[in-house]
Structures are given as C-alpha cells and as structure tokens.
C-alpha cells in the first residue's frame, strides 16, 4: 500500500514536472510569437499533462435537459461508454431547479465561484456574456488537436465563433417545421399550405370544423414565442434580408418587419393559434391536445420528435413533417436552422484536458451511439455533424432522418434561415419574447415594440456582443 502510494506520488511529481516544464516551454516559446500563442501553447501543455492522468477525475456537467428519461439516456449512451474507456473519470450531471433556466442557474453558480467544469447553455445567443467575463475557455487549441472544425458543418462552425475564435461546441441541431396531423387533413380533404394565403384559408376551414389550427402552449415558459418570430421573419423577409437585419445593416424598424408582425397578429386575432389560449396552456398540454386530434398543425422544431411520437401514437394519429409556408411570394425563404445548445468549458476547471477529451467523445467519436438513442429523445445533445442519408438504418424514423439530412445539407450549403436563440443577441432576443404577447394582445404597438428592439440591438452592437451570423449563400 505504502509502495503504491509512493509510486503515485512519484508519478504525480513527474506529471507536475512535465506539466510545469511544458508550460514553461510554452511560455518561453510564446513570448517570441505573441500573447495569443502563449494561451494556445499553455493549453496544449495542459492537454499533454492531463492526458497522462490516471488519478480520479470528477467532471461536473451542467446540462439544460431536466427530464429524467433524457438524463438517463445521456447516462446510458454517453457517460457510461466514456467511463468504460476511462474508468478514472466520473461525470456528474446537474441541472437548474424547476422554474429556473440554465442561463440563470449558471450565472448564479459563476457569481458564487462554483461554476461547473463543463456546461451546456441555451445556444450561441447566450454565450457572449460568459466569454467576455472569462467563463468560457478558448477552445482553439483543442479544436486543432482533435480536428473539430473539419468535422462540423460550416454553418454550425460560423454560428459558434466569437470574434473568430471557438469558445463553445454547437450541440443541439434544431430546425423549425410544420407538423401536420395527416389523419385530420385526409379526413377533410385539406392540402398542406405552402403560402401565407393558403395557410389562412385552411386555418379558417379547420376552425369552422371546431378544431384548432395551430397547437402550442406558452404557460411555464413564454420564451417559446421566439419560435414564431424566428419563423415569420425568415418567411417574410427572406434569408438575405434577415441576415442584413441581424448584422445591423437594416434597422429593426424596417417597414417590412412591421408588416410581418401585422400578419402574425392577424393569425392570433383570428384565434388560429391555440384558440388564443396559449398563455394558459403548457407546452406538454398542447402536445396532448394535438396528439388527441383536436388540433391540426404545430409550428415546432426538431426537439418535438419525442413528444410527437408519444402523443400521436397514443391515439393512433398519423402525422408528417412538412416545410413551413412562405409568407411572401418569391422570397428566398429557407427553413430556420440553428443551434439550441452550446457546450463550453469553464477555464477555472482543474480538469480541462479531460473535459475536452470528453467533448470530443460526446460530439464526434460517439456518432454511432448518438444514432441509437436519438429517436427516443427530443433531439437533445444532437451534434451538428454532417449527416448523410446512409447514416440512418431502416429502423430509424424516416421523418426524423429526412429532416436531419435536409437541415444538414442546408447548413453545409449556407442555405438555411436563422433561429433567434442562435443568431440574435441576448438582450434583443429577451426583449422580443418577453414583449411578444403584449404585441399580440394589442397592449404594445408594433411600432413601439420594433423601435425598442432596435434601440437594444444597437446597444448590443456597440458593445460588441452580437453573435456571429453565418452569411447566406449568394450574398
């Protein structure tokens, strides 16, 4: 026992010496090439030192998903396989308590000096404050070591850079689509709408039959309203114009943006969205209503596969996923695609190299495992890899496979629209969803809403906290 302890002590001493030597060497070399390189080389030294580690390592991982089945699946398909390869590493999942968003919880933990080793936040929009406050590690050295940038689609990579550097890994691959209750559509002979006018006509017919055109629920989290303006701003302005808005070349007070809001308000005023009861209904209840056939459409993202299967299968409702209708003829509308979660490493973690290795495993090396558990989940922890049709076996739900392949292709070719939680700056995004209901209910004029949106956006632009927005093809 004593011998073993001595051996560990000698190993530790050697490791510490190696780490110190490497860091010193890195620092000396770095002095010659500049401060930026010092950071990179010091990290590289750290990687080498920690790769030799065989002592117990515990990584605290703050995750956004709180449902028990999701956490169990991550344990089974992600953490357990990694621990089989590295028995000395234990990974503890932690999540924000009910009623608190991950962003709020993380801010509190960091303010208290108790930040997790690695964390999974709500998307690129929310990352700049962490980066500017030194709570997200510059991942460039690890990206170079593991070749991460080559494995990501360009859209995902561009969405994940802050001032040209990689600080977080895009995690949840998300895109918005029209979810259709085909049982009802076939029963009444309705056609899936492809334009705004067609959508309004079929919604009127659906309502006349006593059904709800669009099911959704905002009770518990009003932030889901951002799905709607993410959709209609892309569908009315088109990708190229929206890119110009998001980069500050066109103001938010542009008349076309106001028009798109007026069109949205018309849909709300006519009761096509959850019979105007969305603020009183939870998202889960809205799934139940849709699954029971009481509603025909959902304007929903890829995260809805799991509840879609559960609630629709319960009542044998046939359903399909269709492209969202465009709101303006001839516009360059591409389905909004984005990154729902961003995984970063706490620079103060004592196990940075292990954390980076785990991320490499989780995001890139573990591709086969991801395919196993993906259909069972709400697309959580879906890395933004370059998916191909032959990646998916015959048992894989073809609806999910087709959406993943299409979105992957859209991202690879930069023909994708923008999701607010990926491409909007944080304060602008928060103002827009917290006040969206006021616009729908007519308590706040569209003009005032957009004026304030623009004021906040310009402030964030001046402060340099705009997220990097991938440039669309052809611009």
């Amino acid at each position, binding site marked *: 026992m004593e011998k073993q302890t001595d051996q560990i002590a000698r190993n530790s001493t050697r490791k510490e010496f190696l780490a110190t030597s490497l860091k010193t060497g890195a620092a000396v070399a770095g002095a010659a090439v500049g401060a930026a390189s010092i950071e990179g080389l010091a990290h590289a030294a750290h990687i080498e030192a920690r790769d030799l580690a065989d002592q117990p390592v515990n990584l605290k991982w703050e995750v956004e998903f709180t449902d028990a089945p999701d956490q169990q699946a991550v344990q089974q398909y992600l953490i357990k396989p990694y621990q089989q390869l590295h028995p000395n590493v234990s990974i503890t999942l932690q999540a924000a308590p009910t009623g608190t968003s991950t962003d*709020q919880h993380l*801010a509190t933990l960091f303010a208290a000096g108790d930040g997790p080793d690695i964390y999974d936040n709500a998307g690129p929009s929310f990352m700049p404050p962490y980066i500017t406050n030194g*709570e997200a590690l510059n991942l460039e050295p690890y990206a170079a070591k593991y070749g991460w940038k080559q494995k990501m689609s360009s859209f995902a990579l561009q969405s994940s850079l802050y001032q040209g550097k990689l600080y977080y890994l895009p995690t949840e691959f998300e895109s918005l689509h029209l979810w259709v209750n085909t049982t009802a559509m076939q029963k009444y002979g309705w056609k899936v709408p492809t334009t705004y006018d067609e959508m309004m006509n079929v919604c009127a017919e659906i309502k006349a039959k006593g059904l709800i055109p669009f099911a959704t629920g*905002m009770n518990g989290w009003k932030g889901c309203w951002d799905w709607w303006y993410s959709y209609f701003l892309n569908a009315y302005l088109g990708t190229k114009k929206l890119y110009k808005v998001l980069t500050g070349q066109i103001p938010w007070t542009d008349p076309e943006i106001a028009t798109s809001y007026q069109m949205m308000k018309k849909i709300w005023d006519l009761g096509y969205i959850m019979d*105007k*009861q969305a*603020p*009183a209904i939870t998202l889960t209840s809205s799934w139940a209503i849709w699954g029971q056939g009481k509603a025909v459409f959902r304007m929903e993202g890829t995260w809805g596969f799991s509840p879609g299967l559960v609630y629709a299968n319960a009542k044998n409702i046939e359903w399909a996923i269709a492209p969202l209708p465009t709101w303006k003829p001839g516009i360059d509308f591409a389905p909004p695609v984005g990154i729902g979660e961003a995984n970063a490493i706490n620079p103060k973690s004592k196990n940075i190299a292990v954390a980076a290795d785990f991320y490499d495993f989780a995001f890139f090396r573990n591709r086969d495992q991801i395919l196993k558990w993906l259909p069972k989940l709400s697309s959580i922890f879906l890395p933004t890899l370059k998916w191909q049709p032959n990646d998916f076996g015959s048992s894989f739900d073809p609806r999910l496979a087709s959406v993943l392949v299409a979105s992957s292709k859209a991202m690879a070719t930069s023909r994708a629209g923008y999701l607010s939680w990926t491409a909007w700056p944080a304060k602008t995004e*928060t103002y827009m969803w917290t006040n969206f209901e*006021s616009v729908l209910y007519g308590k706040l004029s569209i003009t005032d809403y957009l004026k304030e949106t623009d004021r906040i956006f310009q402030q964030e632009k001046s402060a340099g906290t705009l997220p990097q927005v991938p440039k669309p093809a052809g611009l």
Partner: protein
Amino acid sequence: MATLEGLSTPSAARAGAASAARRRRWRRRVVPWLFILPAVLLHLIVIGGPALFTFFLSLTSWNGFAFGKVIGFDNYRQVFTADTTIGSAVMNNIRWTIIFLTIPIALGLGVALMLRTIAHSGVQMTYRTIFYLPATMSSAVVGRLWQWIYDPFYGINTLLTSWGWTGLAQSWLADPNIALYAVANADNWRWWGFLMIIFLAALHNVEPTLYEAARVDGAGGFRLFWHITLPNLRPTLVFVGLLTIIWSFQVIDLIFIMTQGGPANATMTLAMWIYQEAIYNYSPGYGSAIAVLMTLGLSGFIAGFVYLRYKGWDV
C-alpha cells in the same frame, strides 16, 4: 483589614454604594443588549449585509456576470423616466392589495364570527381544520391545482359549459382583463383560512362580560359587533392590514407559477418585474434599484404603524 478600613470611612462607603449603583445601571442598560446581540449580529449578516449590497448593486451596471461600473443613480432615473412596465406593475400591486385588504379579511372575520358561535369544540375544530387546510399547501401545489381548474380545455369551463352556463366559462389565465383576479382568487383560497384562525384567536380574547352588559342594555347583533367586537379586534385588524400590504407588494410565487406575469404583462407585479429584469434581462443592477425603491415604499407603511403606536394608538 482593607474591608475594615473601608467600612470605617463613611465616604468610602458612599463611594462603594455609588459604584454598586453604577454597576447595576450598567447591567440594566447593557446586559439586555448583550442578550439580543446574537440576534442583532445575525440580522446584520443575513439581512443588513445583503440589503447594503443590494443598494450598492443598484448603483452599478452589473449584468449578472461582470460587475460593470458604478453608474450612480442612473438606474433610479431609468425607473422614473424610461421604464414602461413598472407603472402597470405598481397598479397591479395596488389592485392586489385592495383585493386582499377586503375579500379574505371579510371572509376570514365573517367565518370566525360564525365559528365562535359553535359551542361544540369538536365541531368547531373540524371546521377550523377544513378551512385552514389550504394554508398548509405549498405555492407550487396551489398554483398547479388552480392551473388545472382554470384549464380552458379540461378545467372548470367544461363543467360550466355542461351545465349550460357558457357565459361563466372564461379564459381565466389567457384574458388580460381577468388573469390577475383569477390568480388572486387562487391565492385567496389558501389565505383566508389563515386569517380566520387569527381572528378566531383574537375573538376568544374579547371579554365576554362586555357582550353580557351590552345585551342587558338592549344592544342587538350589529351594535355588539360594531361597538364591542370591532374595537377589540382593532390591533389584530391593523396588524393583519399591515401584513397584507407588505405581502401584497412582495407577491410573486403564484404569479410566477401560474402566469409568469402574463398574458401581456397583465399579472406583472413589482416583484415579478424585478425578477424578470434581474434574471431574464441580464440587469440585476436595475432590478436592485427597483427592489430598493420598493423597500423604501413599504418602509413608509411600517413607519406609519410605528408612529401610531408611538402616539399611543392601541394598534
């Protein structure tokens, strides 16, 4: 020997007595403070420290991450000049206060008066337990329960419609004109039973001979209530009123659970607005400024209460 010398001199005896008197005075003045010192220290650490820190934060542009910089009273200026939501939040707090200063107090007092007339202690206890039960439930349970009751597709509306009372079926939590009252109703459901217990305890302390004497003089039920019950309940009523005002301005729990301030800010209150600004909107510095102003406003009510007591009012 020294004692003998001391006793032998009258001036020394006087000095000794004076010293003993000083010690007694010191003990009387200081010792009570020493006894409450732990509580004072605890209060300073738990309440005073964070309160001062909140005031400091209100003078900064803290975004929840980096402290930013000290910006003086800019946050306070913003409250009065640029915040378009805070006015409606204050109005909602006032509406909430009016509701809770009337309905649950009237209900609690009325039921307490009725229960007092029940002679059988077991029956009275049964009623007290039933009425008090909702007060033991957590906000999370009450909030969820009433969300289900108000559910537009499965809740009480279904029942009302099946009875043919379609006019009473409302968008309880989705109509901005109704939502605040719907949430207040849920809060009142668990609150009035607590007030009933307080009033019942206070009623037990009213001297029964006062009622007997008044009855002999021919006083009826209303006169008994107006001239004996109410004056004797005045301290309790003032205390309950003060608590109601303070708690009404702090209300957040059921609103957070049931509506999160919506729809369209219809249930936004000051505490909810502080939370939204501080947490969702990355402006804890600004949220702290609202919190400080809210504390100052509520301190005015407490100061009024203290002043009345100082003036000899029996409250």
